C-alpha cells in the first residue's frame, strides 16, 4: 500500500525579476523520510524550501502539506512544521534560554520543553549567554533547537551545518540521527556536503539552475550515474561517491 506523502511539490515555478529560480520541480516526501537537497550556490534550494515552508509563494504549481494546500491551512501547518532559515539572526541581547522561551511561547510551550531542547542541542552551558556572543556553530545549534521546539512532524533545515567545524557538524548529525530513529519526523535538508546527504538521508535530490538533475537513494544515484557515464568514451570506472556523481552532473563542485 502506498503511503500518503507528507509533502507534495507539483510542477512548481518561481521567478525573481530576471532570474528563473525554480523551474517546474516535482517532489514527494513520505512520512519519516529524510530528504537531502543538494546543489551548488544559486541552484534554487532556498527558494524551493521557502515555498514549502509557506514563506514564499510559487508563481505556478502546487504545494500540498499532508494533502492540503497552504491557503486556508496556515494555522494548522505552522504547528506541525519546524524550520531553520539559511540566515536568521535572533535578538542579540536575549539570552539563549530566553530566546527558546520566546519561541516556545509561540507554540504555547513552557520552560520544560526549552530545557529539553537545550540539552538536546547541547547548549546547556550557554544557557545564560547573549545570542550576540555565541559562536557561529552555537548559533546554528540554537536555530536547530528553535526548529525542534514543537516536536515537528515536518522539519525543514536550510544548510544547518554550513560553516561548522567537523566536530560541530557531527554533533548536529547525531541530533538528527536520533530524530530519524524516532521516525516521527520527515526532514528536508539542504546542504553542500555530500557526506551529510550520505550519512543522514535516505533520499537525495540533486538540483541546479532550478531543476532536478537526479534523484533517488544513494544506491540509485551511484548506480544510475555510473550507467550514464559508461556511455561516454572516457570511462573511468563507476563513481565511488556522490561527489563524483555531482561533478559529472553539474560540471562543477558542490561548494562552488
Amino acid at each position, binding site marked *: 500500500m502506498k503511503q500518503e506523502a507528507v509533502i507534495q511539490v507539483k510542477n512548481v515555478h518561481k521567478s525573481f525579476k530576471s532570474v528563473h529560480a525554480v523551474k517546474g520541480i516535482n517532489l514527494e516526501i513520505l512520512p519519516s523520510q529524510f530528504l537531502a537537497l543538494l546543489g551548488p550556490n544559486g541552484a534554487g534550494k532556498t527558494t524551493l524550501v521557502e515555498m514549502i515552508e509557506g514563506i514564499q509563494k510559487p508563481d505556478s504549481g502546487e504545494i500540498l502539506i499532508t494533502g492540503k494546500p497552504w491557503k486556508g491551512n496556515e494555522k494548522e501547518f505552522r504547528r506541525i512544521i519546524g524550520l531553520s532559515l539559511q540566515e*536568521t*539572526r535572533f535578538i542579540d541581547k536575549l539570552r539563549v534560554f530566553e530566546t527558546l522561551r520566546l519561541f516556545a511561547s509561540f507554540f504555547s510551550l*513552557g520552560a520544560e520543553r526549552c530545557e529539553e531542547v537545550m540539552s538536546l542541542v547541547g547548549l546547556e552551558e550557554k544557557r545564560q549567554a547573549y545570542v550576540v556572543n555565541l559562536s557561529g556553530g552555537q548559533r546554528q545549534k540554537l536555530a536547530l533547537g528553535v526548529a525542534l521546539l514543537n516536536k515537528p512532524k515536518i522539519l525543514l533545515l536550510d544548510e544547518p551545518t554550513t560553516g561548522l567545524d567537523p566536530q560541530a557538524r557531527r554533533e548536529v548529525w547525531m541530533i538528527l540521527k536520533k530524530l530519524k530513529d524516532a521516525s516521527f519526523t520527515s526532514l528536508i535538508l539542504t546542504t553542500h556536503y555530500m557526506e551529510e546527504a550520505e550519512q543522514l538521508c535516505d533520499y537525495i535530490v540533486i538540483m541546479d539552475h532550478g531543476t532536478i538533475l537526479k534523484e533517488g537513494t544513494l544506491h540509485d544515484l551511484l548506480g544510475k550515474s555510473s550507467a550514464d557515464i559508461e556511455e561516454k568514451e572516457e570511462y573511468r570506472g563507476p563513481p565511488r561517491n556522490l561527489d563524483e556523481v555531482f561533478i559529472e552532473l553539474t560540471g562543477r563542485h558542490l561548494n562552488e
Partner: protein
Amino acid sequence: MNDLKNSQLWQLILANARELLREPAVLFWGIGFPILMSLGLGVAFTKKKDVTVMVAVIGRNHLVHTLADSVSVIQSFLQNNRAVLKVGKDGSLSRELTVPDEKLGGTNYIFRDLSWKTAMVMLKRGNLNLVMDEAQGLIQYHFDPMNPDAQLTYLKFSKLMQDPELIIRPSETEIQPLDVTGSRYIDFLVPGLICMGVMMSCMWGVSYEIIEKRSKKLLRRMIATPMKRSNFLVALITVRIAMNFVESGLLFLFAWLVFHITIQGSVPALILFFISGNIAFAGIAVFLSCNTAKTEIGNGLINLVSMPMMVLSGIFFSYHNFPGWSIPAIQKFPLTMMADGVRSIFIEGAGFGEIMLPAVIMLATGVVFFTAGLKLFKWH
C-alpha cells in the same frame, strides 16, 4: 499564572523589555539626554545672569587722578563709587564697577581709557557697545541706536550717573518679577521636551526596531511559527509606552526637584492624554516602518517626519512666532497637538474637558495609522 508566563504576548513583552534595558545607549538617549537638555536650557533661560559690559572712555586719562588735570566728571564718579582700578598684563588701565540687582540681574561695568580709533575697532568687533567722552563737564554717549544692548547700557549707566545710590540700594520695589511657577521658560520647555521625547522614542524604538528586525530576517522567522502577528506589534508598542512613562516621569521628577515645576491641572487627564499621544506616535511609527527592510530608508523616513515637527510644533519656542496663515496647519500636527495639550494641563490647569477633543483625535490618528500599517505590513 503559568499560562500567563507562557503566553506569547507576555514573552514578547519580556523580550522587548529585556532588549531595551540591556542597551545602555538607549537609556542614555531616552533618559539622560532630555534631562541634560532641560538642565542646560532651563538654566540658560530661567536665571537672569549678571552681565558684563565694557565702556570706552575717550580722551584724557579719566581713570586715574593726575595732578595736572582738573578732575573730570567721569573720573570723580568712578572714584566716589569705589570703582576698582585694575592693571592689565599689557599695562592698560581699567576700572570696574559692579551694580548688583537681584531682580534684573547685576551689571558689571568695565571702563577703559581708549583712543577713538581703538574704541571704534573694538566696537566693530562687538567687544563694547558704548563709548563716552567728556567736554566741558558734559558727558557724551556714542552708540548705535539700532543696537538694543547699546541702548540698554546707555540707559542703565546714565541713570546710574544721576543716581549713584543705585549701587547700594536694593532693587526697585516697583519691579515685580513674573517668575512665579508656570510662567517661566522652563515651565514652557519641560512639557515640550516630554512630548518630543515620546515622538522620538516611538520613531526610533518602534519604527527603527521593526525595520532592523525585518532586515535581520527575524520577522520572517517569527511568522514562520504560530505567533499572532498583531501580538508582535502590540508587545513592541506596550514596552515602548511603558518606557515613555518612565522617561517622562524621570524628566518631570528632575524638573520638579531642580526647577520646582508643578502640574496645575488634572493628573488623571494628563495620564490619559499622554497615553493617547503615545498611541498616535506609535501608530505613525508602525505605518512608517511597514514596508522597508533598509535601515537607511528608515532613517530618512524618521527624519522626514520628525524634523518638521521638531521645528514647527513649538517645542523650544512658541509657534505663534510663525506667520499667521501657517498656524492653523501647525496646530494640526500630532506633536503640536500633544505639546499644546500637555502644556495646558501643566501650566494652565486644564482638565478632562479641555483635552478630550485633542485626545480623541490623537487616539484616532494612532488607530488609523496602525491599522493601515498592519494592512501594508511586510513581514519579509
